[in-house]
C-alpha cells in the first residue's frame, strides 16, 4: 500500500517548508520576539546546525511523540490549538458529506429516472453550477439569504465551540457544492445500470417488475457513487479552508490560513500534516473498502 511512503514523502515536503522560506530557519522558528539567545537555543533544540536528514529525523520524532512545541504567536502549545480545531473541521466535513450524499443521490436518481425531461435538465444545471461556483461565492449567497434577509441563521461563529446553529450555513455551503459531482455520478451510473437491466427485462416481464429492477439498478449504481463520495471527502477538506474563513468557523483550515499570515510556521506545518494525513487515510480506507468488494483488485 502506498500510504506510508506517500505520507513520509509529504512530511518531507512539509518539513522542508522552513528551509524554502527566505531567511534563517532558526530565526523564523524562534519568532519575531526572539533574542539572539532564543534563536541560538532554537537552533540547538531543533538541530538546525546538523545535516538535513538529521533535522528531518528530529522533526518526525517531534511529530510522532506529539511534542509539537508552542505557537509563535500565542505561545500556547500547538497540540491544544490543533486538536480541537481538527475535530471541528472533521465535524464540518462529515456533516457536509452527509448533506452532499443526501442531496446528490436523490437528485441523481431523479435525473436518471426522468432522463431528458425538464427535471433532468434542472438537476444537470444545478450540478454544473455546483462545480462552477466558487465556495466563497456560495457562502456569500447563503449569508445574504439566511442571515441578512431572513435573520434566521448567524453569519459568523462566535468563539471556539460552534453550536448547531453555527454549523448549518458552513455545512450547507460545502454540502451543496459537494452534491453536484455526486449528482452527476449518480445519474450517469444509474443510467448505465438501468440501461442494461431495464431494457432486457421490461420487455419480458411487464410493469410491476420495473420497481424491482429499479431497486436492483440502484444498488449497483450506488457503489461507484459511494466510492466517489469517499474520495470527495478530500476535496471537501480543501473547500473547508475557504468556508471556515468566511464563517469564522474555528476549524483547522482557518487556523492554517491565519497562521500563514501571522508567520506562525510551526502551526502551519503541523496543521498541514494533519490534514494530509486525514486525506491519505480516507483515500486508503476507500481503496481498502473497494478491495474488499472485489478480491481481484487486491492482486494489483
Amino acid at each position, binding site marked *: 500500500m502506498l500510504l506510508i511512503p506517500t505520507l513520509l514523502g509529504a512530511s518531507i515536503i512539509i518539513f522542508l517548508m522552513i528551509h524554502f522560506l527566505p531567511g534563517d530557519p532558526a530565526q523564523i522558528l524562534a519568532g519575531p520576539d526572539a533574542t539572539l539567545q532564543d534563536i541560538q537555543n532554537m537552533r540547538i533544540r531543533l538541530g538546525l546546525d546538523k545535516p538535513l536528514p538529521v533535522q528531518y529525523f528530529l522533526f518526525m520524532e517531534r511529530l510522532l511523540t506529539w511534542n509539537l512545541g508552542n505557537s509563535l504567536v500565542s505561545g500556547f502549545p500547538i497540540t491544544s490549538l490543533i486538536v480541537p480545531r481538527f475535530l471541528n473541521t472533521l465535524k464540518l466535513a462529515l456533516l457536509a458529506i452527509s448533506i452532499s450524499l443526501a442531496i446528490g443521490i436523490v437528485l441523481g436518481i431523479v435525473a436518471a429516472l426522468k432522463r431528458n425531461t425538464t427535471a433532468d435538465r434542472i438537476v444537470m444545471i444545478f450540478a454544473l453550477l455546483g462545480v462552477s461556483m466558487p465556495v466563497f461565492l456560495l457562502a456569500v449567497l447563503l449569508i445574504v439569504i439566511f442571515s441578512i434577509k431572513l435573520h434566521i441563521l448567524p453569519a459568523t461563529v462566535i468563539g471556539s*465551540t460552534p453550536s448547531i446553529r453555527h454549523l448549518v450555513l458552513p455545512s450547507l455551503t460545502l454540502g451543496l457544492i459537494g452534491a453536484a*459531482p455526486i449528482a452527476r455520478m449518480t445519474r450517469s451510473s444509474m443510467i448505465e445500470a438501468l440501461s442494461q437491466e431495464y431494457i432486457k427485462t421490461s420487455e419480458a416481464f411487464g410493469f410491476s417488475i420495473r420497481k424491482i429492477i429499479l431497486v436492483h439498478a440502484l444498488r449497483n449504481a*450506488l*457503489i461507484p457513487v459511494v466510492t466517489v463520495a469517499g474520495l470527495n471527502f478530500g476535496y471537501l477538506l480543501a473547500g473547508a479552508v475557504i468556508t471556515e474563513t468566511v464563517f469564522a468557523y474555528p476549524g483547522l483550515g482557518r487556523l492554517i490560513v491565519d497562521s500563514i499570515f*501571522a508567520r506562525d510556521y510551526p502551526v502551519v506545518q503541523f496543521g498541514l500534516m494533519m490534514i494530509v494525513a486525514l486525506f491519505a487515510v480516507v483515500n486508503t480506507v476507500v481503496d481498502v473498502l473497494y478491495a474488499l468488494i472485489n478480491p481481484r483488485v487486491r492482486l494489483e
Partner: protein
Amino acid sequence: MILYPNNTQKTFNRCIRLVRERGISTSAIIGIVVVILVIAIAGAYLATRGGGAPATTTASPSTTTTAPATTTTTTTTVAPPKGTLIVAMGTDASTLDPQDATDNPSEMVNRIIYEGLVEFDQNLNIKPMLAESWDIKDNGTTYVFHLRKGVFFQDGTPFDAYAVKTNFDRVLNSTLKLQRYSLYAPIISSVEVIDNYTVAFHLKMPFGAFLNDLAHGAGLIISPTLINSGKDVKTNPVGTGPYMLQEWVKGDHITLVANPNYWNKTAAPKFEKIIIKVVADDKARENLLKTGDVDLVLRIPPVDVASLNGTGNIITRAYPTSRVIYIAMNLMNQKFQDVRVRQAFNYAVDKEAIINSILNGLGKPATSPLASSTYGYCYAGYYKYNVTLAKELLKEAGWWDRDGDGYVENANGQKLEVNLWTPQGRYVGDYQMAQAVQSYLNAIGVKVNLQVWEWTSYLNEVRKPYNQSQNKELFLMGWAPSTGEGDWVLRPLLASWMWAPAGSNYGYYNNTQVDELIQKQMVTLGQDRLNAMCQAQKIVYNDAPWIFMVEMYDTLGMKSNVKGVVYLPIEIVMLKYAYSG
C-alpha cells in the same frame, strides 16, 4: 463526466466493470451502505454533542431570571441585579493586571472590575472615585488624597491608604518589569501613608497631567492581599468594582458577575452577568447585533452606522475619539530627509474625501499630532489637498518627471519609489485608507508598493531599531493617549529619547526644540503648559514627520433597551453603569 485524478478514475472504472461483470452480493452492498450511514450519523451526532451548551443568548437583558441572594445589609433598598448583558468586541483582553495592560480591550474590562482614585467622565473631566477629595501642595509636587471609607475589595480586604501605597510601590518596582512602569516612574518619586485614609504622592516635578495619569487605566487599584500573595494578577483580578471575574476563556469570552458587596449603592450593578465575547471581524459583529445574538457591539463599519440606526430595535452611536491616524515616515531613510518631500506627501492626500467616502463622514482631518478632544490640543495647521502645490514642492526638492513615464525621478535618474505598510482591520478603514494614499501618491508621481501586515507581526516589525529597519519607509499607525492629554502623545511618539524600541517614536523623529518643549510641559502647569504643548505641536506639524491623516470616530451598536453605557473619548466603553430599560 468530470475527470478526477487517476486514482478516482481507475477506481470508478473498476466499479463499472464490476457492476457489469459480477452480481455483487447483497450483503456487500448492505455493508457499504451501513458504513456510510454510520459515518453520517456519527458525524451528525458529533456535531450535536460538540455544540454543548451554546452561550446563553438572553435576547434582551431585561428577561427576569432568578436573582442571586444579595448578602449585604443596606440602608437603601437596591434592586437585585438581573439578566445578562452580552457584549461583542474585536480583540480579547491580554491581561487583567491594570499595571501591565497596554491595550484597550484589557483596559475596558479592567475598568469594570477595578476602580481608581479618580475617574474620567464622558468629557474626560476628572471626578472623585476611591478618593473623595485631594489637595495639591508644594507647587504641585505633592498630592494628598483623602480616601473614601467603607470600601472593600472583592476578596473582602478593606480599601485604605496602605492598599494605595502597595499598588504604587508595585508598579514603581522596576524589577517587576510591568508595562506601566514607564508611565509613572519618571513622575512619582514615592508614596506615603499619612493615616488610614490619607495618602500622599511625592512627585519628581510639578507634573500637570498627574490626575489624568491616575485616572488612566494603569491607576486602577488592585487588592493588596492579591499583590502580596504573589498570585498572578493577570488572570485573577481583584478590585473594588461592581463586577467580578467569573471566567475567562482566552480568545473566546470573559464572564463577569455582579459584586454583591459593591460599596456604591447608588450605582449598584444592574446585571447579574456581563459576558464579553471576542468576534474579530467588524462586519461579523454587526451581523450578530442584527440577529439578536448580542446586545452591545463595539465598532461597526461606518458605512452601516447611519442605515442601521433605528432599524429593528437597534440604535447606533458615533463618538469622536482621541485617536489620530497618521502615516509615519522612517526619517533615517534619505528619501524623506527633505522637509519639502514630506510636506508634498501631506498636500497630496485629500483627507476630506477619505473621511467622506471611506469613513462615511465619521472623522475629522488631523490638524495636529493631537486630536481635538485631547487636553492640550491646539490647531497647528492644515495641509489642505493641493496636487499642484505637492508637485511643486517635489520639484523644488529635485523630483520631477524627467522621462515622461508618469513617475518622478531625481537628478540621478532614480524613481521615487516607497514601501507603504499597513495593518488590516486594526483601525477602522486602515487598509482602505492606505489604498487611497497609495492612489494619491501615485497621482503625484510616487510609486508606492503597498504591503498588508497581520497586526502582531506588524507591531514587532515596526518596533525595531533603525539599524534593522531598512525596508520600513511609510507605515500607517494610530495613537490615542489613554491619559486623555497631550503629554502622552508628544512624549512617546516624538521625543528623541523615545526612539523605537525604547518608546513609540517609530519614525526616529529628532528635534531638539521639540524635545525641550516636551520636557518643559512635563514640569509646568496651567497656561504655561498649554503654551509649551501648543508650540511643540506647531513645530511638529510643520516638520511633517508624518502624513497627518484623520481624527477617528468610534462607533457602537446596541439594542435600544441598553442604557447607561458611557463612552470615553480615549476609546473606552464604560460598562459599569449599564442597565436595561
